[in-house]
């Protein structure tokens, strides 16, 4: 074995210590980089060279060839990643839902004096007032004005909610664009990683970037993914491939729908790009927006459900009120004699079914003259000795509607509205709780991920000192061999000089 072999070993030792210190530097440098996974050098001893062993002077003293790098690896748990991405979709769904339902609650603003309940109470109180004094024109005007206020309130909330529905529609489109960006970038990284890793190296830093994108994507639509044996990376959503290595199936939002209940135009259906197959998804932020936009049942509360409730209330209120009102008689004024069969709320050409909270309106007669409010149950004849102007029987029946419990369709006006509000409140509070528990789960998973992959500065310091010592020791070995060679070369064979 050659003396110079020792120099070779020292060289490999110096090189690997130096590389380790550099890698420590890289780890420390990226200690705060989002998505960075700590890296380590996997090293192994170089096997003793077998070829020259038969000419070795001492066959029992074969020494290995030093050290070499296997690979620079990253320390990451695929299991935690999968868990985290699965829960992330759920968080995306509930978090969006909780925030938006809270917003809907604040739009309805039920606890304020400008709520629908308050406007309805004001209206019915003025009707009660009318039953006390049906002759008084100011009180009649008050009934008309309070009815207008109630209608305005209905319309205001209807408009606000319908606008919000359109906002969710736009949010869906924006989210689809984000998803497409992420899919495209993931496919690009797939190509880079594949090419890089052909050499046998690991593309650690590019993998980190792809992992960040997968985290983001999992929050938006909920994904599953795998890396097949040939190193191709595949992303699925609901069993359909969105990314297969460098091939991407993009999504496309096409305005082919109309808004549920509100009937607003240009609502987006999401397709796989270039096909007529609707995109299949059931979790994440995108799905949350879809439920908020389209949900129309008590277990799927969305804007349409609230709009529907308001519509039903407006519709049956108009019908029940008109029913009683049209059976009464109006107050004569000017040349106009007392009439019966007058509607209080306007009935559209298509009947009560066409009334929405956004189109509820007073009838033309009530708007023209407040004397057309029918408070009396009998014909009022201003010429007769008893004109019957004090007859308040119909006004009493109108006022009694507010406490009546068997109005078709809604039961009781106040209870109906109350149950809708409470449904939203419960849904909102459930979403908040779900968000909270999802956040706790994700915090825990994130912590575990950090525990495995995060850079610990203390640890890196210790390692740095270890590598530094290894480097110093290797240098010392080199010096020892150097000195031995010096003796051999420069001071050997000088006997008797």
């Amino acid at each position: 074995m050659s003396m110079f072999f020792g120099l070779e070993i020292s060289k490999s030792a110096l090189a690997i210590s130096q590389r380790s210190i550099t890698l420590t530097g890289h780890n420390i440098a990226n200690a705060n980089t989002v998505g960075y996974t700590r890296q380590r050098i996997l090293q192994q001893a170089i096997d003793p060279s077998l070829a020259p062993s038969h000419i070795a002077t001492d066959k029992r003293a074969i020494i290995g060839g030093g050290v070499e790098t296997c690979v620079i690896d990253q320390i990451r748990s695929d299991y935690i990643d999968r868990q985290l991405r699965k829960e992330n979709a759920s968080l995306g769904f509930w978090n969006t839902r909780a925030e938006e339902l809270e917003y809907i609650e604040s739009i309805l603003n039920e606890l304020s004096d400008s709520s629908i309940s308050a406007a309805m109470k004001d209206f019915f109180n003025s009707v009660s007032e009318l039953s006390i004094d049906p002759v008084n024109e100011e009180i009649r005007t008050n009934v008309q004005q309070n009815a207008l206020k109630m209608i305005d309130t209905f319309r205001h909330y209807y408009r606000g909610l319908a606008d919000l529905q359109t906002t969710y529609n736009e949010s869906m489109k924006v989210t689809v664009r984000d998803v497409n960006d992420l899919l495209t970038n993931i496919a690009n990284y797939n190509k880079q990683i594949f090419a890089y890793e052909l050499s046998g190296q690991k593309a650690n830093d590019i993998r980190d970037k792809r992992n960040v994108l997968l985290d983001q994507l999992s929050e938006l639509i909920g994904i599953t993914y795998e890396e097949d044996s040939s190193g191709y990376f595949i992303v699925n959503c609901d069993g359909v491939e969105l990314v297969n290595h460098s091939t991407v199936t993009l999504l496309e939002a096409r305005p082919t729908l109309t808004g549920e209940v509100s009937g607003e135009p240009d609502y987006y259906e999401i397709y796989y790009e270039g096909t007529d197959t609707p995109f299949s998804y059931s979790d994440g932020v995108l799905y949350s927006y879809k439920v908020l936009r389209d949900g129309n049942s008590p277990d799927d509360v969305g804007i349409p459900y609230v709009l529907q409730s308001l519509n039903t209330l407006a519709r049956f209120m108009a019908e029940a009120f008109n029913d009683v009102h049209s059976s009464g008689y109006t107050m004569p004024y000017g040349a106009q004699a007392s009439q019966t069969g007058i509607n209080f709320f306007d009935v559209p050409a298509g009947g009560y079914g066409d009334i929405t909270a956004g189109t509820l309106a007073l009838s033309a007669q009530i708007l023209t003259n407040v004397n057309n409010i029918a408070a009396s149950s009998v014909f009022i004849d201003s010429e007769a000795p008893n004109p019957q102007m004090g007859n308040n029987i119909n006004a009493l029946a109108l006022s009694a509607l507010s406490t009546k419990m068997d109005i078709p369709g809604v039961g009781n006006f106040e209870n109906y509205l109350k149950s809708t509000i409470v449904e939203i409140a419960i849904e909102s509070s459930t979403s908040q709780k779900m968000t909270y528990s999802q956040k706790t789960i994700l915090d825990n998973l994130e912590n575990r991920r950090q525990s495995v992959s995060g850079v610990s500065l203390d640890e890196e310091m210790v390692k740095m000192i270890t590598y530094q010592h290894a480097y110093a020791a290797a240098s010392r070995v080199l010096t020892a061999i150097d000195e031995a060679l010096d003796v051999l070369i420069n001071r050997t064979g000088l006997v008797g000089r």
Partner: protein
Amino acid sequence: MRVTSNMMLSGYLKNLGNNMSELNKLQNKMATGKRITKPSDDPIGIISSMQTRVKIYKSEQYKRNVEKSLTWLEQTESSVLELNDMLKTAYEKAVYMSNDFLSPEDKIATAEMIEQLRDHVLTIGNAKSGDKYIFGGYNVTSPPFVVDDSGNILYNGIDLIDASNPALLSEDKASIQYEIGFDVVMDISTTGTQLFGMGDNNVYTVLDDFCNALRNDASAEEISQYIAKLQDCQTHVMSVDASVGGRVGRLELIQNRFEDDVLMYEAIKSNIEDVDQAEAIMNYKMSEFVYMAALQIGNNIVQTSLINFLK
């Protein structure tokens, strides 16, 4: 578990954030005095809260209705009492006149006086509360009692003497009801027929007849008939007064009850919606303490690192 300083720092930041948001929440509660700002804060509580809001709102309207009913009935009562006074005076005159020692001139003088009373009784029958005639039933806009050219008294255009006239009987049944509670209405009206009575012995006709009898120099025996008739009239009016008085009493009771109810509902609503300030302050102080402690600890976490100890 492997713990990195970054984990500690981010955990610390998260907790600090939680503490801050808790402080913010408590501070909001104290500043607004409200425990609930939106229904989802307490979906179950909100049910009773909305219920009580309705009750308070309605109760206040009913209270106003009761006040108006009371005003109406009090004015009715004072008219009835005034009518009773008139009848009493007439009765005294009748008693005084029922002897044979009075000259026709005396009788005519008294007849003048009774005529005054009779006309005043008509004014009472046409009394108003605000703009509305009290005793007209549903006729609140024109004087219910009118005397026609032949001296007959008409109630809402119908001869009051004809007690069997169906039109008059239906006028007698007219009742104006006011809403004075949840699904409770009260008849607050007293019709003119109830006030004066119907038929020959109605108050106006009795006085009118009495007046005519005096003018015609009626005998003591004839006049003494009017003593009984006027007594009957008085009994009749007193029974009207009792009916009105009874209703006033009931309304006053209801009025007091509404005042208590509103207070009770306000208390229930406040229990659900409002913050217990003492508790809120205690909670705030506690949160503040936790926040301070967290800041203190943070000071240690942030500064500790192996680097400080490497020579």
